[in-house]
């Protein structure tokens, strides 16, 4: 896995707002076909890094390469073709409130591809079913959906164009533990079926343990560590020790131990 070139490669990224510097020379790679869990304290800049990669936040310094292309060097048309190859699940879902669930999923397909209405509808329905939503959800508006359903519809929309990379911003936040576990499972299944690379910002230690191949840790504007969960648990870094060494962290540690020494 680590031998193939990274699909996302961020080097020395500096991002700031006014006086404050949020990211200070952050460097991170995402490899093809992996689920990268991205953790860090609240306000550490995890979402900012994600938004900088997808181009919602301007950078001050550094390079961001996606599929080997420097995003800053692309013209509009090239950039759009890259954007077609990634999907984003925003923290609150960010569904279009005036469109139904089905229309939300149809929207990117309709915008980017010139297909017959029948095929667009079939594909959108297929995506909704793949994220585990029943048929009666399709005609509902986001305001009529529960939090978990909104996340699933948003995931279906993020997957609408069969992207190669999916960005997930705290996918399990706001879900109950059962719903969160199901969602983790769903991400894992879809990642395998569709061959996705996943960049997942999360706080959920269970998600980190259940689905992430690698974990990257952001602290004080830098990526201080990246590697599989075992390496994180073994790390001596004080922030990592307090993050994984807390009460919730120890439970995950127990699970890892149990897997290593059954």
């Amino acid at each position, binding site marked *: 896995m680590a031998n193939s070139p990274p699909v996302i490669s961020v080097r020395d990224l500096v991002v700031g707002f006014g006086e404050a510097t949020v990211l200070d020379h952050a460097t991170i790679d995402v490899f093809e076909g992996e689920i990268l869990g991205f953790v860090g304290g609240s306000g550490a800049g995890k979402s900012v890094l994600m938004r900088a990669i997808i181009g919602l936040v301007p950078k001050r310094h550094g390079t961001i390469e996606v599929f080997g292309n420097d995003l800053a060097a692309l013209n509009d048309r090239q950039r759009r073709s890259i954007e077609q190859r990634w999907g984003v699940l925003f923290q609150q879902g960010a569904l279009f409130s*005036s469109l139904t669930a089905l229309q939300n999923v149809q929207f990117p397909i309709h915008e980017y*591809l010139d297909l017959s209405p029948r*095929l667009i509808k079939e594909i959108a*329905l297929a995506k909704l*079913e793949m994220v585990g939503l029943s048929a009666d959800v399709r005609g509902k508006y986001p305001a009529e959906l529960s939090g978990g359903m909104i996340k699933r519809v948003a995931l279906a929309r993020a*997957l609408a164009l069969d992207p190669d990379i999916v960005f997930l911003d705290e996918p399990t936040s706001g879900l109950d533990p059962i719903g969160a576990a199901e969602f983790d499972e769903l991400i894992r299944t879809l990642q395998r079926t569709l061959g996705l690379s996943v960049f997942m910002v999360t706080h959920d230690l269970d998600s980190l343990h259940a689905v992430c191949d690698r974990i990257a840790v952001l602290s004080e504007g830098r990526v201080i560590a990246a590697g599989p969960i075992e390496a994180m648990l073994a790390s001596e870094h004080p922030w990592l020790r307090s993050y994984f060494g807390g009460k919730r962290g120890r439970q995950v540690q127990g699970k890892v131990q149990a897997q290593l020494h059954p």
Partner: protein
Amino acid sequence: MSSVLLTATAEGERLALAATGAWTAERAAELERIIDEAARRHKDALSVDIDLAKLERLDTFGAWLVERLKRAFIVRGSNARIIGLSDADRGLMDELQLVNRAPVQDRSTTNRILLALDSLGRGVAQIGWAFVLIAQLLGALTAAALGTIAHPRTLRLTSIVHHLERVGWRAVPIILLSTFMIGAILAQQGIFHFRTFGADVFVVDMVSILVLREVGVLIVCVMVAGRSGSAYTAEIGSMKMREEIDAVRTMGLDPIQVLVLPRIIALVIAVPLLTFIGSMAALYGAGLVCWLYGGMAPDIFLERLREAISLQTFAVGMIKAPFMALTIGLVACVEGFEVEGSAASLGLKTTASVVKSIFLVIALDGLFAMFFAGIGM
């Protein structure tokens, strides 16, 4: 681009379809035509093998089209299967075998005339309902106001002052400018037409009575409805969307008292003041035009003004102002509370708020005209 994506070899009732190239989203439109064509042309095939062994790439779009092709044969009773599936694509194909099984129900086709009548009826009912809601809010507002009189400490003075600054003080420049221009335009038109029969001096009568009785307060109300009424609706509406109003309620507070009362009190104070300022600006504009365009010296204008109007003329305009302010505030808040979950509904209700309040202000002005005529004012 024109590479072959599907080749068919038919042997009697057996059909072998071989998919080649990339079956992906970019070519999905082309693929859809190809599979529909293949399904149509070989409709007599009894046994169909769809061979995917030579595929270069397959994504959800391509996989769904393969599945759709397979189903097209199965529906006709043929025996169709997919062969040569690579391990990487197997998961995807398995997943897509399960989707779109539920029959898609057709939209019920109803009579167009019935639909038109239905929407007309709903529209009329909605107009009636709008008045009910306004009456309801007026009642709730009165109750809140009485509660505040009983317990003066619950009056939100800070909030009132805040809204007063927004709807009153900050509206002054635009109100001054627009009423000044209205006064100037009325005077110019009056002079232009009255001059032909030598009645220049009556322009002052016309402008002053018109401005003080009707136009001043109407222009101010239209500006306030567009400026502040829409803001009230949008604020309350987005607070409702984000459950802030529920939060207020669960804290044991009355949203009417916390959100509506200060806003409406601010409007009821601000609109008469703005009407006064606006009327003065309009008269100033009229005087300026009379002087520069009509050649009427300012002291003659003032002299004529004194004869043309009385305190009553002024009072008629001012009496109407607080009632119109109340109407604008009520409509704006009612529409705000009517906002539902979507961004579109917020836009719709904000538009409705402005349109309805301007209409009601004009209707109210008509009622006042009849009332004042009745009591001889």
